[in-house]
């Protein structure tokens, strides 16, 4: 049995002393002490492994003379923390001298709280033998004629954050996540195709209590084999039915990033100056909710100590709010939304999505297919990229079918979707399904790094005017 949670370090007293020290060195300071533990068990057709990781670090952020500075250290040692605070104070002051636009922020009420993911079966208490038995079963279920390779892993992680700031807040959050992932490669002669899926929850090992492993593996393997007979997608503009996974990613990438208020504040978003205007059809309502029970992007409090909450961003097609950090809320004169997030203790805190949801509609998927004369339906996304400045998008998908005269035709493997403007896409969404996918797990980078966990629960959508190409 491998148990690594006891690497936690109690840092509360030292953090409070460090905050006292920082209060005279800065206009504002927050400190985040983050302890992480993780364990991954993996098995492929050819290999097997088990690995563990434990990290600890403290991120210090100081606001001084109109600029923020970030430093970090890896010990709960007051002398080292003071040295990191001194350095942050010095480089913030230097930055402040060279910055025309000064950063400011309001003072908020101090909060003392502790929040923790509900865990019934601690994944670190589950013997590695049990996880490997499960992995052997899933590889066996996936293995069959024409499956050349299968790879499965079970990962569990816990992150404990202790947050303190010069307003007097002290907040502890602990999140646990458990993941099962399987990918399979099908092969016929020189042709290869891949399919994958992930089953995960912000919970303990009880995540898998109701999972039918054989069915899960069977579906993934069968689909990979079916792609061997898939056709290339048609080219050009057409109607596209996006599954909940693809629709959720579309909303996240094209709308969500453009509604992060730092892009608004520095005039890099197509949504700047669009508040209280229509940018989508009246069947579209989008909200971000970091407080959602069981969401992959649920955070309880953001990395500035602000409570996470549900924020309606798009109300029946009308843009009504952006997602904020303390700095952007102050700069744009808007309410805080609890969306300030950082990858870890060495990274900066910026406005980010949490669980960004598209509200369900009224159609069945069958009704939506019957509405399409010529188009495609797509199943899953593989990668996607935002373009808040230009308003276009690139969405790569896996699986689906061609649709002709309201009927499903040949299967598709990989497709690339794009548009000249996501506002044009949103104005061409004519149907949204009743069914909504609530188990949505993702990891999102912004620009070129700064990775955070996000959820994108969504129903299926029917969108017109999408540029379709192969992949």
């Amino acid at each position, binding site marked *: 049995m491998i148990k690594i949670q006891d690497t936690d370090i109690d840092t509360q007293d030292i953090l409070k002393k460090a905050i006292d020290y920082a209060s005279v060195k800065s206009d504002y300071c927050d400190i985040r002490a983050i302890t992480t533990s993780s364990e991954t068990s993996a098995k492929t*057709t050819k290999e097997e492994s088990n690995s563990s990781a434990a990290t600890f670090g403290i991120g210090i952020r100081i606001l001084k003379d109109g600029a923020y*500075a*970030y430093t970090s250290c890896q010990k709960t040692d007051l002398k080292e923390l003071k040295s990191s605070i001194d350095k942050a104070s010095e480089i913030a002051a230097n930055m402040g001298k060279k910055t025309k636009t000064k950063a400011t922020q309001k003072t908020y009420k101090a909060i003392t709280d502790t929040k923790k993911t509900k865990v019934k079966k601690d994944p670190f208490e589950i013997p590695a033998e049990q996880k490997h038995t499960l992995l052997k079963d899933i590889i066996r279920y996936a293995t069959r004629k024409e499956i050349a390779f299968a790879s499965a892993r079970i990962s569990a992680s816990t992150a404990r954050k202790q947050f303190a700031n010069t307003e007097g807040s002290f907040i502890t959050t602990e999140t646990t996540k458990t993941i099962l992932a399987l990918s399979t490669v099908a092969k016929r002669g020189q042709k290869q195709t891949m399919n994958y899926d992930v089953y995960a929850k912000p919970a303990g090992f009880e995540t898998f209590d109701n999972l039918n492993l054989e069915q899960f593996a069977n579906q993934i393997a069968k689909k990979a084999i079916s792609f061997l007979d898939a056709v290339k997608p048609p080219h050009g503009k057409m109607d596209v039915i996006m599954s909940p996974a693809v629709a959720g990613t579309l909303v996240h990438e094209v709308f969500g990033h453009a509604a992060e208020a730092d892009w608004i504040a520095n005039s890099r978003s197509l949504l700047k100056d669009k508040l209280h205007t229509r940018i989508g059809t009246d069947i579209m309502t989008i909200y971000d909710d970091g407080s959602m029970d069981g969401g992959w992007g649920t955070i309880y409090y953001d990395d500035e100590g602000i409570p996470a909450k549900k924020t309606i961003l798009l109300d029946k097609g009308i843009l009504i709010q952006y997602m904020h950090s303390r700095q952007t809320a102050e700069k744009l004169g808007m309410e805080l939304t609890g969306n300030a997030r950082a990858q870890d203790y060495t990274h900066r805190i910026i406005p980010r999505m949490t669980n960004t949801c598209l509200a369900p509609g009224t159609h069945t998927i069958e009704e939506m297919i019957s509405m399409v004369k010529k188009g495609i339906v797509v199943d899953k996304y593989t990668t996607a990229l935002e373009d808040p400045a230009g308003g276009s998008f690139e969405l790569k998908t896996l699986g689906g079918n061609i649709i002709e005269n309201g009927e499903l035709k040949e299967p598709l493997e990989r497709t690339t979707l794009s548009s000249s403007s996501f506002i044009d896409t949103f104005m061409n969404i004519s149907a949204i399904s009743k069914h909504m996918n609530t188990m949505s797990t993702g990891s999102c980078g912004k620009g070129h790094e700064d990775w955070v966990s996000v959820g994108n629960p969504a129903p299926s959508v029917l969108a017109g005017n999408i540029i379709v190409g192969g992949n």
Partner: protein
Amino acid sequence: MKDFESILKKNNTEIFISETRLSEYPIDSDSTYTRSVTETGYMIRTLKDNRLGTSTSNIMDKEAIKKTAQLSLASSKHAEKLPKSFSFTDTKGKTPVSGTFDNTISKDMDTLSANLREECQKTAAESGIILTNGKIKLTEFKYTIMNCLGIEKTERGTYISAVIDSKADTKQPLAELSSTYIKRTYQKSDFTGWLKNRIDITKKCINPQKLKTASYNLILSPSVAGPIMLDTIGYWASGKSRLDGISLFEGKENKAVASPNFTATDDPTYPDAPSTFSIDMEGTKTKKTNIIKNGIFSNYIYDNKYASHADTKSTGNCKKATFMGSEKIYTAGNFSGMHNLSIDQGTEYLESLLSNFSGIYIEAVGIPSADHETGNFGFELRNAFLVDKGAMTPVRYAIYSGKVQDLIRDTKTMSKEREIVTDPMAPEYNSACITPYFLIENQKISAAK
């Protein structure tokens, strides 16, 4: 180091330790932050009964190191049994620091990165360009490998990287270009020259036109061609994908996989490239390896583990790839991967190619990636130009899809100049590609009209 050495004495063990210091400034004038952080961490690998266990941590006290070693040993129980030929790197003795190290970068990183930010803003303002997003990042790194066979080897180096998004107008949607600069040493003229070149291209992207769905001749820039070559050739030549039985080079040893004018080499000695190292990440001396020579597939690349599976020796290609930021390199698992994939140049410069060309020149796309299993790719054109005998019109809102196997077989010609490109998400340490521009004829473009 003493705490680590006591573990080496007890077990059949290898320890990888990375130390990273970085300074980051935002590139745009509206951002008001700076970041100056350090990170040290380690990975312990333990071999027991020919099974390899792994554990990582960044907690440096004696007890944590001991615990991490115990976890590594325990995890070996659940690893597959490796061939008897497997061992850690066994060239004994210490090596002096030998990486590309630039004191100009390392000396006062915070001041240099602040100065570079000012240089960028000044150059952009003089050119009528606004920098909308991005950062200057200076990194100093050191990694040390110690193992039970007596080696203690250290590699040290520096990086200067800049990611810039720049806009040339204020109308929505913006004409924006995203670019990445990555070098191991700093030369002001080189950096400023690169910046001015990116600004010139950004200015040409204003008011893009819509294309028609049709077939076109294409010129692909290094930032488009390089990443898809790494994704596919790098993957198919890897000892891991050979073991997994999913390399598309399987059964093609010494056979044609590309046109006779296509030669690709893994070159960990290339000056100033991101992945130029004298030792790999398990301490094996690196060397050049021919991958494709005149169109013929020549060699796979290996680390110690995958070499043992193939009953051969490591080619010095143990890599750790991470997208979580270069400072967390110690957390990334080992695999057999490319250092710098160097593709041989052609005979004509880009300017000459463009002067006689009718088609689309693609400078940047959404995500330049290709699918490992199939070689297929598809991406949105972000910065592209319709070219007709030297005249260039900006175009957008289109998708180019194809297959890497076709690209390396059917490319008509490649340019004389080459550029170093890497993954913008984590440019330091990771595999890089040194590649020319590619000219390929009659390719399908799916577009808005």
